[in-house]
Each structure stands twice: as structure tokens, then as C-alpha cells.
């Protein structure tokens, strides 16, 4: 790709977002609507609250709960998925229960988590972990079941031990689907992080936004929405970036194989 087409592509990719921001800026500049304050006001407030003010500390409990819940839940999910893959009897036996817990809309459990763990952050972490477990578990199971039997025969013929088979056959074979599962887990985790802060909580970004809405501090609420949007987007992009890097060999072989990259 030469330099000119590269610039043309970049221009194509950025012109619309720029136009949207400019339109928002000018269309809202004279806005009298209580719900849609001028963008300049929102940005001023954003700097006051989030750069100089204390609002940024609301992110700490949110991100801590997310990290503990997401990592704990997906670890459980990957290990559980691997276990169910190894033990077919267990897989058949638990199938309906696992499926039920997977399709159960996790926010519905929030009131139950309050009853179980009280109002503190434990119930928030527990809820996030619960939601993160099932997409990770089912995708790990699917990914491991999808590995070609020939690969195991080859590993056996080459005298691979159990550990070596795990590292060189099972994990590489299942990792694209495990990654897809973790991506789904992360999305559920972010939703659950915010929901758990919007019901009976006293800190966190979700609490900040809903509290601002309750006291009708609309501009402050908008700053929270923008920050949450940026944080959520950044987390998703960070995950995709790590995934691309960790699975570079996979995408590379798919390109060579002529499949969709």
C-alpha cells in the first residue's frame, strides 16, 4: 500500500467522527434543553470534576471490582471448561445447569447477591465473577472440543506427555475461541460493574452518574457518561489489542490460508 492510499484511508476513517463532534459542538452551543447542555459546558465540567476534582477516584473502586470479578470469573470459566472437556460424564450431567446459568440474565441476580453478601463490594465482585464465568466456560469447552483428533493422535505418536500436549496442542488449538469467550465475558463484566453500582451502592462510576441524575446535575451526569464511555471503549480496545498480539500466529495463518482475516 503506498503512502497516498494510506492517507486517503485514514482521511476516510476519521472524517465522519470529526463531523459528528463538530455538529454536536455547534448544535448544542445554544441549547436550552435541560437534558442536552452545550458540549462546551460538559467539557468545562469534565475538566473541573475529573481532572482537578475528586471524581476520578470513583474509577478506582469500579476498576478494582471489575478486575477482581473478571479475572476470577474467567479463570473459573477456563478451568471449568477444561474440566468439563476432560470428563465427558460431568459434561453431560451438568449440561442443563450450565446452560441455564449461561442464559440467565445476570443482572437479575443482583438483588440476590445483596441478600447473600450484603451491600459491600464483595457482592459486586461476586456478581461480576458470576457473569464472567459462563461465556468463558462454554467457549473454552467448545474450543477444546473443536480440536482435530488427528492432532492428538500425532502428539501421542510423537510421545508427547500430558503437559506438553496441553501446552502445544490443547491451548494453541483452543485459544482463539477462549479469547472470543473472554471478550464476551469482559463485555458482561462491564455491564455488571455499572449495574451493581447503580443499585444500593455508595461509590463507583455508575453511582456517580446515577447520583448526578437523581439530583438533576445534568452536566455532571454527562461528564460521567463520557468518562464511562471512554473507559468502556478503552477496555474493549485494550482487550482486542492484547488478543491480536497473543494470537498473531493465528491471524497470520488464517490470512495465508485464504480465510477471513
Amino acid at each position: 500500500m503506498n503512502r497516498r492510499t494510506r492517507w486517503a484511508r485514514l482521511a476516510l476513517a476519521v472524517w465522519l467522527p470529526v463531523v459528528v463532534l463538530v455538529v454536536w459542538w455547534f448544535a448544542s452551543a445554544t441549547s436550552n434543553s435541560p437534558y442536552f447542555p452545550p458540549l462546551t459546558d460538559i467539557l468545562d465540567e469534565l475538566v473541573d470534576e475529573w481532572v482537578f476534582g475528586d471524581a476520578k477516584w470513583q474509577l478506582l473502586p469500579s476498576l478494582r471490582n471489575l478486575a477482581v470479578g473478571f479475572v476470577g470469573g474467567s479463570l473459573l470459566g477456563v478451568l471449568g471448561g477444561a474440566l468439563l472437556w476432560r470428563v465427558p460424564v460431568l459434561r453431560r450431567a451438568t449440561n442443563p445447569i450450565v446452560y441455564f446459568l449461561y442464559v440467565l440474565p445476570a443482572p437479575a441476580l443482583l438483588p440476590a447477591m445483596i441478600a447473600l453478601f450484603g451491600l459491600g463490594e464483595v457482592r459486586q465482585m461476586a456478581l461480576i465473577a458470576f457473569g464472567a464465568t459462563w461465556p468463558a466456560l462454554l467457549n473454552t469447552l467448545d474450543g477444546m472440543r473443536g480440536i482435530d483428533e488427528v492432532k492428538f493422535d500425532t502428539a501421542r505418536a510423537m510421545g508427547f506427555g500430558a503437559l506438553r500436549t496441553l501446552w502445544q496442542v490443547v491451548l494453541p488449538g483452543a485459544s482463539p475461541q477462549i479469547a472470543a469467550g473472554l471478550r464476551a465475558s469482559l463485555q458482561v463484566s462491564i455491564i455488571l460493574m455499572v449495574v451493581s453500582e447503580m443499585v444500593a451502592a455508595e461509590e463507583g462510576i455508575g453511582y456517580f452518574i446515577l447520583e448526578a441524575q437523581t439530583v438533576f446535575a445534568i452536566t455532571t451526569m454527562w461528564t460521567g457518561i463520557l468518562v464511562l464511555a471512554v473507559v468502556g471503549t478503552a477496555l474493549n480496545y485494550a482487550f482486542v489489542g492484547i488478543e491480536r498480539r497473543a494470537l498473531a500466529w493465528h491471524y497470520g495463518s488464517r490470512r495465508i490460508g485464504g480465510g477471513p482475516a
Partner: protein
Amino acid sequence: MQAAIGFVRPVLVPCVTLLLVLAGWQAVTVSGLFRPDQFPTMTDTLTALGAALGTSELWTAVGATLQGWAIGLVIAAVLAVVVGCVLGANDVAFRSTASLIEVFKAIPAIAILPLVILVLGSTIGMKVFLIAFGAFWPLVIQVIYGVRAMDPTVSDTARALGVRGWRRFVTVTLPSASPYIATGLRIASASALILAVVAELVGGAEGIGRRILFARNAGVTAYPTMYAYILVAGCLGIVLTGAFFLLERKGMHWHESQRGVGTAGLEAR
């Protein structure tokens, strides 16, 4: 004999597990490992479920959740198919909008919930807007990928035969993209149900989520009812996900992507 065992086992084993789980639930609650104000007993919960199934309250709540889910999903699907087909067919339009769509897809829909509650109130409209907003972005990406993944031979043949405009959209573009759309719909349906429950829990719209919160706020005596409603929410998830899974499997059997070995569906990345 062998055949009978082969027929019974797939049903028997899950049933036994289900009974074991129910018995385990009863054991940990009756033995006092969990207090009634933490986790009600299985028998109390099933009794509450039986009682709730006979009330109009439960069915109104189920109806309200389903209504928001369905309207939101239909709006998102229609918009996504129309917008996705236009953007997928035109390279400049696709490249211009791709970054914007990716960003909106990455924004957690729940971020805008307080704003939507403020503008629309605790109404079905609020729920529908949140669901449609959350379901639209991933769905439109699926449609775009589906349209762009069209076999060039099919596309060239249609052009050579002079199939253009509306007819091309209905007879060539839609069928070719439909497996992607079906997968997108299955995923969107699950997130639509989650967003419906969120809109009811946080936004106070009528539905299962609100009933669960009410039951918790009503105190310990209503906890079995709370768990009964949670079980109902899970059953709703099973019915909806199962329906879309069947649609994907059975409705798409003619498409080449489904003719080979069982594929897990086509998800755009």
C-alpha cells in the same frame, strides 16, 4: 436393551444432576449453612414459584419484559439490516462509518441509561430505546460483514443477469448475508434480555427485573418469591436463546455455511 439405554441415558443423567442440585440446595439451607435471610430453601422457593405462576402479577411482568425485548430487537434488526446493507455494498460508505460504528459498539449501552431514564421516564419507551441502542451496533456490524462476505461469483452473476436495486436486495444480498444476520440476532437477543432486566432494575420499568427488586425490598418473607422470579428470568433466557439457536440451525440449513460439518455460527470480528 442397548438401544433403550442409549435412548434413556441422555435424558436420565441431566435429570439426576438436576435432582442432586435441588437436593444440595435444600441441604445447605436447611442445615443452616445459609440463613433464610441469605438464601431461602429449595422447597420454599418452588412453593413460591408455584404460587407465583398462578398470579397475574408474574405473567404481567413476563409480558412486559418480553414486550420491551421484542420491540427493541425488531427496531434494532430493521435498522441494522437496512443500514448494514447500504454500508456493506459501498466501500467508501463502509470505510467512512467503520470507526464510528466500532466506537459506538464498544460504548457500554448502560452508560446512557441515566440519560434515557431522565428523558423518557420509567416507561416502556425507555426500555425499548436502551435495548434498541444496545442491540443495533453489534448487529449492524454483523450485517455489514455478511454483505461483504458475499461470494464474488454470486455478485457477478447477479450483475450479469441485470438483477439490480430492490430485487437484488431481496433475492441476492439478504439471503447471502442471512447466516451472519441469524448469528447476530442470537447474540443481540441475549444482550437485549440483559438490558431489559437492567432497565427494569435501575430504571423502574415494569417487568421481571423490577419484580425481583421489589421482592428483595419486601424483606425476608418475600425472598423465596425473589428466587422464583430469578428462575423465571432464567427460563425466559432458555426459551429465547433456544428459539434463535433453532432458527440459526434449521432456518439456515440451505446456506452453504451450514451444509458442512456443524459450524458454531458466523461471528464478525
